[in-house]
């Protein structure tokens, strides 16, 4: 059994307008996302802004109530959980937020911020909680003295460490890292990424790592799911995905990432995508990517392809939602002229 199973997750936000605030449309932020996360692994969730990756993370924790779909954590149906059950579940599922400047209460001391989960869940005696806070601060590379300070006394990287300490307080199993380092400077970013990695090794944590930086996601994740306009278009082991991308969007995304190596940059061919990401309030018919896709055929305009394995070199675990995926046989890349239509996975 996987630690976390997400099936057909949808989160739609109503658009209200007029004096009567009638719902006149929907923003399809997350529109049918399915994946599993095994215990101890890191699943990267990557995509451009507005693709629904953060909403997915929050919907799993029910910080945003999902519209439809199933979320199962250790066999427990998260969406059906009552308030009390949900509180228990949240001991095991924590989140690290993107912006360390807004996710810490400026009027509370670090001790109270990091200790809050312990207070809420009534863990141990006050003295034990105090000791635990100090231990947590040391785990994330701060000093015990820092407990008496306020957030504004810390730099961005240190604040993010406080956020991590808070997430670790209850010995969670799963941590959703929502762009944990994108607000930080390059040299500090590397410190925090290494810290997350060390914590994972030490405490056997499972991460859902949400980020828009592909090199970072590749670095941090075992498997990667690529999202576009509320849907997962490709999911695979990270090295495989980066070496043999099958979806045209993944290919374009990878080729757009600059490499810190001038020689390689000069010899590189870039796929430049035309135009912008369409609005999730009005997604295109058929495959969501087809208006920007160079390989799109007639079938792409009618129906969204299902996420499925394509055979060949790609194992079962490499799945792509595309009618014209790049396929690899014996290391050779080819794109078939006839569309590849996968059967929807059996429920």
């Amino acid at each position, binding site marked *: 059994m996987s630690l976390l199973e997400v099936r057909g997750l949808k989160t739609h936000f109503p658009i209200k307008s007029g004096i009567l605030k009638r719902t006149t449309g929907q923003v399809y932020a997350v529109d049918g996302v399915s994946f599993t996360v095994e215990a101890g692994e890191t699943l990267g969730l990557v995509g*451009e802004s507005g693709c629904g990756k953060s909403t997915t993370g929050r919907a799993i924790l029910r910080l945003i109530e999902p519209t439809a779909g199933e979320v199962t954590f250790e066999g427990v149906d998260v969406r059906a959980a009552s308030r009390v059950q949900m509180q228990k579940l949240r001991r095991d599922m924590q989140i690290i937020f993107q912006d360390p400047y807004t996710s810490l209460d400026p009027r509370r001391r670090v001790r109270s911020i990091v200790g809050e989960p312990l207070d809420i869940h009534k863990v141990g005696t006050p003295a034990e909680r105090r000791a635990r806070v100090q231990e947590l601060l040391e785990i994330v590379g701060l000093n015990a003295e820092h407990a008496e300070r306020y957030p504004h006394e810390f730099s961005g990287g240190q604040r993010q460490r406080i956020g991590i300490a808070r997430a670790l307080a209850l010995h969670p199993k799963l941590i959703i890292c929502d762009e944990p380092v994108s607000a930080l*400077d390059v040299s*500090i*970013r*590397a410190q925090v990424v290494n810290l997350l990695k060390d914590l994972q090794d030490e405490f056997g944590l499972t991460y859902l790592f949400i980020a828009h930086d592909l090199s970072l996601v590749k670095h941090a994740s075992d498997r990667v799911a690529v999202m576009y306009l509320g849907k997962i278009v490709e999911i695979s082991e990270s090295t495989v995905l980066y070496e043999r991308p099958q979806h045209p969007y993944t290919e374009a995304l990878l080729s757009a990432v600059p*490499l*810190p190596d*001038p020689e390689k940059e000069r010899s590189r061919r870039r796929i430049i*995508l035309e135009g*912008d990401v369409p609005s999730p309030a009005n997604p295109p018919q058929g495959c969501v990517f087809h208006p920007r896709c160079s390989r799109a055929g007639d079938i792409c305009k009618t129906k969204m392809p299902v996420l499925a394995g394509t055979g060949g070199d790609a194992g079962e675990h490499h799945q792509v939602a595309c009618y014209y995926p790049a396929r690899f046989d014996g290391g050779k890349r080819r794109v078939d002229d006839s569309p590849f239509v996968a059967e929807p996975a059996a429920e």
Partner: protein
Amino acid sequence: MPNRTLEVKDLSTHFFTQAGVVKAVNGVSFGVDSCKTLCIVGESGSGKTVAALSLMRLVPDPPGKIVAGSIMLGERDLRALSDAEMRRVRGNDIALIFQDPMTSLNPVVKVGKQVAESIVMHQGKDKAEALRMAIELLDRVGIPDAAARANQYPFEFSGGMRQRVMIAMAISCNPDVLIADEPTTALDVTIQAQIMDVIRDLQTTCNSCVIFITHDLAVVAEIADDVMVMYGGRTVEYGGVDEIFYNPHHPYTWGLLGSLPRLDCKTRLTPIAGQPPNLITLPRGCPFSMRCKYVRRECRDQWPELEIVGPDHGVNCWIPVDERRQLRAELDYITSVCVSDVIT
């Protein structure tokens, strides 16, 4: 080097605040030739943006002030110009693309009019002619259906499109120097690739020199001819792009290279320990000495002289050259950069 388009010498810009003097830029020198791109790299607080604003003389005064140095644009020293003369230079000879396209356009003025504004001001064209030229410019930076789009307001544009508008504005008077202050930081990678393409194309057609400010070394590798690495208001190293990536001499440059996650290989990151410096309480010597692994006593006391280590490659560091080479050889991530270079 004679006749560079822009030559900056010993520029110092300080901010006089109640908490103390912030030495945002502290004796920085650089130059750019036409058709070349100089990248200024550094983390937040390294002084890269203030350096750019100083060139435009846009540092808010008070509290900021350019306290020393010269900024030569061709034959003219920009520091000696009056405010009225400087206004004629801004937008006309030097233009700036700001970081955040969401906040740097006027939300209540139509896009075409905003672009036409500087054409009216600097080239003395009438409004109709300027608008026609503005539409041409919008078309040139890759905005589809430019004539109709010129009649829209900024909120109707996406982030990438707004950045294109900013670029159209900046190039409207064919400036000699185009300063781009983190123009792609707020954008997604696919849009970033589009914008970099636009900037590169324009550079070849306009003969301008570009000063590209960024914190992202990968972007530097893509676009730079020359690189200047800044830390704590100082230039710690400058050189050609290949020199900086394959033959870096300053420990801070090593640190930056080691901090980067890479798409093409997977090694553990080697971050720089410690926190970015507080610009009020900088040490007397090298600002990086507080975080440098190889710090020695003289580093803390005195700023090192510029040392020339190759053609057009200079570094400010107290560690002797031979020792530096040895130390660098022990860093496997820098050799891995060099090895991949040999293979390709």
